[in-house]
Structures are given as structure tokens and as C-alpha cells.
């Protein structure tokens, strides 16, 4: 296979995912409704309870809605990554995964292309979400949307790869409920998505350290800083490293059928 064959293959996989996404408009709606509910209802209710603060990368006092916006963006990616990868469990048995794996291209390349396609879709959804947040008063400079794109893409790739790793361990789609309880919720709540870590440190030191070691915390912080045109070096290093490790593990351990 020559380079152009790889090019057509990669384009084909990405194009298919985008076409499917455009055909399934309810997917966009359902992916946005959850974080918007958190932003509009939850954040409004807790706004006064949690107060406001000055912290990096914010140069001034910010509202709670402003604070949780990056976390909610990452929430979209987290759910997308898990859902799209878990759908591979189903596809592996009876659907399009068979067709994909019948390609003469290396399987690792096919799965990598699928991960990239998933990351592109997640990036689009988060950008749409961030634009909608303007309506409820979340103020992001225009350049913030641009500088956030690479961060969103990297986080999306990492969480898709993590989802693919889980898909390797899960044999039945019904186990998605278990993934919700044991992966998605702990990752989300034990992070800086909803509350700054110094607040967590005041409440419980061991919870603080769990949050510190949770890679999702670093995903949120990477996006938080990127929205203000800044790079959080440690978050970038953790997310990059975690992306490489999960992608290598997921791609090398993927089995067509269990």
C-alpha cells in the first residue's frame, strides 16, 4: 500500500464518521443538553454557595458558570469518547467493525484513524457548546476559541483512546452502565471540573490527591488555560503522556472478537 492509499483510507474513515454524525442530529442535541443543564441549572443554583474567586488563569473574579465551562466541555468529550468506543463493542460483534477490519491496511492505522475521527467530532461539539455558553454570560475572548481547539482535540483523542482501552475489556454493551458508575462519574467528580482543587484540599486531603492524579483533572486544566490563550505545561505533559500510553495500549490490545 502506498501513501495515497493511506490518505484515501484515512479520509474515508473521517468522512464516514462526519456523515454519520450529520445524519444523526439528535446525537448533537443529546451531547449538548447534559452540560447545558449543568451550566444553566446547576451552576445557577450553586453560584452563591460556592462563591467566586481569583485563580489562574483568570485575571479577575469570575462567576461559577465561567469556572465550570471548561469542565463541562471536557464532560462532552468524556461521554463522547466512552460512547463511541463502547459502540465498537457492539460493532465488533455484528456491525461495521467487521468491514473496517477487513481492510488490508494495518489494524493499528484503522483504529488510529477512527480515534482521530472521533476526536474531530468531539472538538466540533465542544466548540458549538462553547459558543452557546455566551448566551448565558460566559465570556471567552475570540482568540480563546482558536487556542482551545488543539487542547480540545488532544483531550478528545486521549479520552477516545481510553474508551477504546475499556472497549477491549468489555464484552457486552449492557456493561455501559458499569462504565458510567465506575469510570465516567468518578473521573468527572474527582477532578477540577466542578470545583477548584484548593477547595477540595480544604475538605479532604486524600480526595485532593486522587483529584491530582486523575488525568481528567489535567484535561480540564489544559482546556481552562487554553481558553485564555495560555499553556498549562504540566497539564499538557500529563495529557500528552496519557494519550500516548492509552493509544498504544488500546491499539495493540484490540481484538476483533472476544
Amino acid at each position, binding site marked *: 500500500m502506498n501513501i495515497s492509499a493511506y490518505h*484515501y483510507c484515512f479520509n*474515508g474513515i473521517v468522512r464516514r464518521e462526519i*456523515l*454519520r454524525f450529520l*445524519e444523526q442530529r439528535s446525537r448533537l442535541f443529546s451531547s449538548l443538553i447534559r452540560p447545558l443543564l449543568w451550566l444553566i441549572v446547576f451552576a445557577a443554583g450553586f453560584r452563591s454557595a460556592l462563591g467566586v474567586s481569583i485563580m489562574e488563569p483568570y485575571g479577575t473574579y469570575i462567576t461559577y458558570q465561567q469556572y465550570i465551562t471548561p469542565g463541562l466541555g471536557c464532560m462532552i468529550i468524556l461521554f463522547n469518547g466512552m460512547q463511541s468506543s463502547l459502540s465498537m463493542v457492539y460493532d465488533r460483534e455484528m456491525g*461495521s467493525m467487521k468491514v473496517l477490519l*477487513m481492510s*488490508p491496511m494495518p489494524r493499528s492505522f484503522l483504529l488510529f484513524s477512527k480515534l482521530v475521527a472521533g476526536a474531530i467530532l468531539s472538538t466540533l461539539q465542544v466548540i458549538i457548546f462553547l459558543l452557546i455558553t455566551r448566551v448565558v454570560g460566559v465570556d471567552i475572548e475570540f482568540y480563546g476559541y482558536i487556542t482551545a481547539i488543539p487542547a480540545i482535540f488532544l483531550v478528545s483523542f486521549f479520552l477516545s483512546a481510553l474508551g477504546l482501552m475499556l472497549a477491549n475489556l468489555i464484552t457486552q454493551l449492557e456493561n455501559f452502565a458499569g462504565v458510567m458508575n465506575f469510570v465516567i462519574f468518578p473521573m468527572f467528580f474527582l477532578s477540577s471540573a466542578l470545583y477548584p482543587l484548593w477547595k477540595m484540599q480544604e475538605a479532604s486531603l486524600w480526595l485532593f490527591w486522587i483529584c491530582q492524579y486523575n488525568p481528567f483533572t489535567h484535561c480540564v486544566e489544559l482546556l481552562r488555560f487554553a481558553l485564555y490563550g495560555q499553556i498549562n505545561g504540566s497539564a499538557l505533559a500529563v495529557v500528552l503522556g496519557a494519550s500516548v500510553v492509552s493509544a498504544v495500549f488500546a491499539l495493540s490490545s484490540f481484538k*476483533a472478537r472476544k
Partner: protein
Amino acid sequence: MNIVIENVSYHYGKKVALDSVSLDLTPGINLMLGPNGAGKSTLFLLLTGLLNAKSGLIKVNDFDYQKNRSSIMADMGVVFQQSTLDLDLSVQQNLLYFAALHGISPANALDNITPMLAQLELADRLKDKVRTLNGGHRRRVEIVRALIHQPKVLLLDEPTVGLDIESRALIIKHVRALGDSLGLCVLWATHLMDEVRERDNLIVINQGKINAQGITSQLCKKYNAPDVYQLYRQLTNNCEVM
């Protein structure tokens, strides 16, 4: 192009699906006849590399799966028992996606697709969503898809099951013509007796074992059976057929 299967076994847990299966498939129609659960689909999954044999050896044109998976897949077209088309996409989008997976550009793929769709009376359905096609039309699209990359081996896992008479007839005629004109090595699994022809290389499989392989007419003579129906019943301990 030939397929050699030597002493291949596969089991799901304790259930044996294939038990030391050996076959030699050559260009033309190789028709695998067996009841449900005989091991046909498992053999297809092994031949497509979606399962790895627990023991034994499979070679396609002297290539083995461990070292030359890419070369084997480049020459193999498959129609699975269950439809694997994307219902939300159009016929064209499905076909171009598959072509892309084989590294074929959209323009080249369309050149290949257009005459095949015309032969299978689907030329006017190119832009239609697969969801709007009936079962017979979907099967025809899957056959076109399996041939886009001009394979030398075509695997058909019960491609006519559940189809109306007209669709069945068209698919049977088309595949037989492909076997004759292109010299494809076609492995066609079925449990429908009327799909067998006298000159086919017939393989009778039951309970994971190959009970007989040879030209249909010669097998009938060898086993002293007046027709394929009786031959099949003899070789499968009176399994009922359709």
C-alpha cells in the same frame, strides 16, 4: 488463486465449532452446504482474519495470516451473513467508504461501482439511503461492495437467506457468472439445497467436520445418491434441508 485449510480447529469455550477441518479451494464455485450451527460462519470468520484459529493452518494463495494479512485482505471480498451496511448512509457513501478502506480513490471507486450496480439493477439507487432499500437490494449492494477492489477470492456467507425469489435468482446468476468469467475463487456457504449445481465443488459440513468434498455429480455417484438432497441426508445423518 487458491485457499488451503489444514487441520483447522476452533472452539467457543467448550463448544467445538470446527474440528480438524481441511479443505482445498480452487477458482470457481465452491459451495459449502451444511445445517445451521455446522461451523460455516466460524470458518468464514477465520478466513477473514476476524478470528484466529486455535490450531491448524490457513493459507490464501500461499500467504498466511500472521505474515501477510494485508495481501490476503487486498484480494478478498466478503458478504457476511448479517448485513454490515450503514443504514444512515446512502448506497454511494457506503460503497465509497469501503473503497477508501482499500485505499481506492472516490473517482476510481465510482468507475468500478457504476457498471456493477447496473448489472444488479441498482443503478438508479446510488443516492438512496440504505435504510430505504429492501433486503434483496441491500444484499446486492453488499455484493457490489465485496467486488469494488476486484478481489480474487469471494466469500459469501448465506447471501440469499431471507430474500424473495427474484432477488435470489438475480444474485445466484450474478455470482455464478462472476465465478465463470473472472475466474474468482468463490466460497459460498448455504443451507439451501436448490443453490447447488452438478459441476460445483461441493463441501458438506456438519457439526464442525467436513463430511465430503468433491464435484457434486461425482459425490452423488460415490455415495450412490440419486440427488443432492439424498446425498446431503446421507452425509449429515438425515439432517433436514430447505
